[in-house]
């Protein structure tokens, strides 16, 4: 007999995906009385995949949530532990927004503004100098005359990568003197942040970012779209390149700062853990994760119908990550 059979789907991983997965799990449990409500653990994308790749069996998880794609090294280490059929499911996007306190000035940001405010070195008269800016209005006169304090996710967050790739890097490309540098130096110049206390890295969750903003009125913080939406009474969102972040603008790709959200299903467990396949299919149902679904209400940017069909088809075909 299987050592300690398990009949509850076990999920773990990214804390960004957690709310969405939890809602689906709860609805799934309610909708299918023959299945238990799946358990959704947290632990970050890393922690989730670590558990996922621990092997096959009742004491390993069935699904890992991730706010990033699985990496090759992780696939390898999965395989060496016997997890060979990793089914990747992308189910939507997470919008990342800049927001400031509702009672302070409104920001109309561009990547180069953020870069100029945050970088260790900025271009001044064609030369790279240590960042001299102390107020947003010095960066660009269209910005409010507020002290520069930028609250960003720390490097243990997946959001940080998006922030670097979608904001800082494009932002620094706007400056000629950086473009001229060789590739390595360019990367460094783009990602090196000032260390004078104006950049605050948050290793915890968005609640902490919000607390920061409450303590420091001038600060601008990085949030997930869903978090912002639940706290609209305290926050106002900044536009990026003139685009206001919303489900539509992010879904259409107009608003540039977003990232795909995934979960990974352990093929070996399908058919063993009751309801696993049904859960995935339920998740990809339009009623659940499409437009107008509870997930959208909770802040997920859904896939469009075509993408969702594809994802579902790929899952049904059991197309594994190589």
């Amino acid at each position, binding site marked *: 007999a299987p*050592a*300690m059979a*398990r009949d*509850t789907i*076990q999920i*773990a991983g990214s804390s960004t995906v*957690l*709310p969405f*997965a*939890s*809602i689906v*799990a*709860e*609805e799934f*449990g*309610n*909708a*299918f*009385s*023959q299945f*238990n*409500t799946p*358990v*959704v*653990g*947290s*632990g970050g994308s890393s922690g989730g995949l670590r*558990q996922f790749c*621990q092997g096959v*069996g*009742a*004491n*390993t*998880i069935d699904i890992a949530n991730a706010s990033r794609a699985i990496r090759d090294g992780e696939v390898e280490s999965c395989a060496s532990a016997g997890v060979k059929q990793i089914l990747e499911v992308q189910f939507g996007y997470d919008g990342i927004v800049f927001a400031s306190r*509702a009672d302070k000035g409104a920001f109309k940001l561009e990547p180069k503004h953020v870069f100029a405010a945050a970088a260790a070195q900025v271009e001044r008269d064609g030369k790279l100098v240590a960042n001299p800016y102390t107020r947003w209005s010095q960066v660009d006169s269209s910005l409010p005359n507020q002290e520069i304090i930028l609250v960003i996710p720390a490097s243990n967050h997946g959001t940080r990568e998006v922030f670097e790739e979608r904001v800082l890097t494009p932002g620094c490309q706007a400056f000629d003197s950086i473009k001229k540098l060789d590739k390595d130096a360019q990367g460094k110049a783009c990602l090196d942040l000032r260390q004078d206390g104006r950049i605050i890295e948050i290793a*915890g*969750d*968005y*609640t902490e970012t*919000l607390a920061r903003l409450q303590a420091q009125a001038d600060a601008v913080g990085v949030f997930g779209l*869903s*978090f912002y939406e*639940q*706290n*609209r*009474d*305290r926050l*106002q969102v900044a536009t990026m390149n003139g685009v206001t972040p919303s489900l539509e603008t992010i879904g259409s790709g107009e608003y540039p700062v977003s990232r795909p959200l995934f979960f990974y299903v352990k093929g070996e467990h399908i058919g063993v853990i009751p309801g696993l396949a049904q859960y995935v299919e339920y998740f990809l149902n339009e009623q659940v994760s499409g437009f107008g679904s*509870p997930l959208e209400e909770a802040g997920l940017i859904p896939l469009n119908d075509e993408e969702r069909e594809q994802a579902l088809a790929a899952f049904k075909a059991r197309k594994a990550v190589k």
Partner: protein
Amino acid sequence: MSNETLSHRSIIQARVAKSLRKRHARERRFRVFGLAAVLAGLAFVALLFISILVRGLPAFWQATITAEVYFDPTLIQLEPRPVPREGETPQAFSEREIAWQSQLTMVNWNRILENSIIALKPELANSRRDVRALFTSSERFHLRDLVGNDPSLIGQRVTLDLVADANVDVWVRGNIDRSLPDSQQQLRPAVRALADELRAEGVLNIKFSKALFTNPDSRSSPASAGLAGAFMGSLFMMLIVIFLAVPVGVASAIYLEEFAPRNKITDLVEVNINNLAAVPSIVFGLLGAAIFINWFRLPLSAPLVGGLVLSLMTLPTVIIATRASLKAVPPSIRHAALALGASRVQAVFHHVLPLAIPGVLTGAIIGVAQALGETAPLLLIGMNAFVANIPTTPFDQSTALPVQIFLWQGNELRNFFEARTSAAIIVLLTMMISLNALAIWLRKKFERRW
């Protein structure tokens, strides 16, 4: 006595007298500092409790809609609940049962909910979406379960207390600034107006809510999120700690105090135990993840693993407390027993241990209380999961009370969950203080002076 010594003494007396005023002043200052320190300690306790009570108590009351629900047979078209047929395999029966359950779930319960308000305000018949927004989303399952348990309700009218949506609760209580423009509000203007109207009419009330105590956590329906799951998880872990850490700890203490020879090895064990008592709890989390989950392959997120980790963590506390109370038993008792021809084991188990029991119990309770409040190691063994079931065995996945607090304080619905978090803290503190009071009571009751 010579005059010389006399005068010498009077000089000395004069000097002593001279020093006195300053010394007494210093004495008084010192005493005031001491009193101030005690008062500061008491003030911290008071401050902490008041601030948490003020924040948390309101969360025990929740916006509740009291309405007459009509279980409309035209909406609930349901076959009778299947009963086992003769000669039917259990599997076939359970399939029929599941089919019936699905049918039950498919009923449009939301409509029934909406109708309960529309019956009061027919003018809303065209804004069902606004009406639905009043209720927290799990209320539809509440209705489903009512009918599932008692199909005879179909066709009846029942007055029910229905939990309002979290945002409605926030709005009617003024936990969000009511003067904010629409763009900054969570609720649509129509829903806000409706909520205010119902409030004025007495349909929507702030009522004491059992949800917090009877429900497990919920994400899709925050207003019905409760502590029952976390409570059971904590309970199982406490039981494991009681049945593991306490006996093993007491046994270790007895060995070390009464039997172990005094040598380098026992010295090392002693240092080791004292050190374990101070090892950061988070390190025990790393230990639990590596040993119990990866090595022994125990289930994830289970109170079993949490209990084991917490047991290891509590072990030194129990050992140290037990040793202290064994030490406090006067040697004369041991000698009396030994001199009557009792063996060492008999002396310990007949006399010393029974006398040490109050101390052992106190130590055990304090250890258990400590385990009950621990969070950090649980984060590393997957107990910070979202679990929508109430666990029924220590092998079922669950969270724990302190972890639930941690999860709730990070919930994005700040306006709602700040109070909820404090309410959860009140529950946890109540348990904690009861345990501590029990310990103090035991200590008082059995306090013995030799």
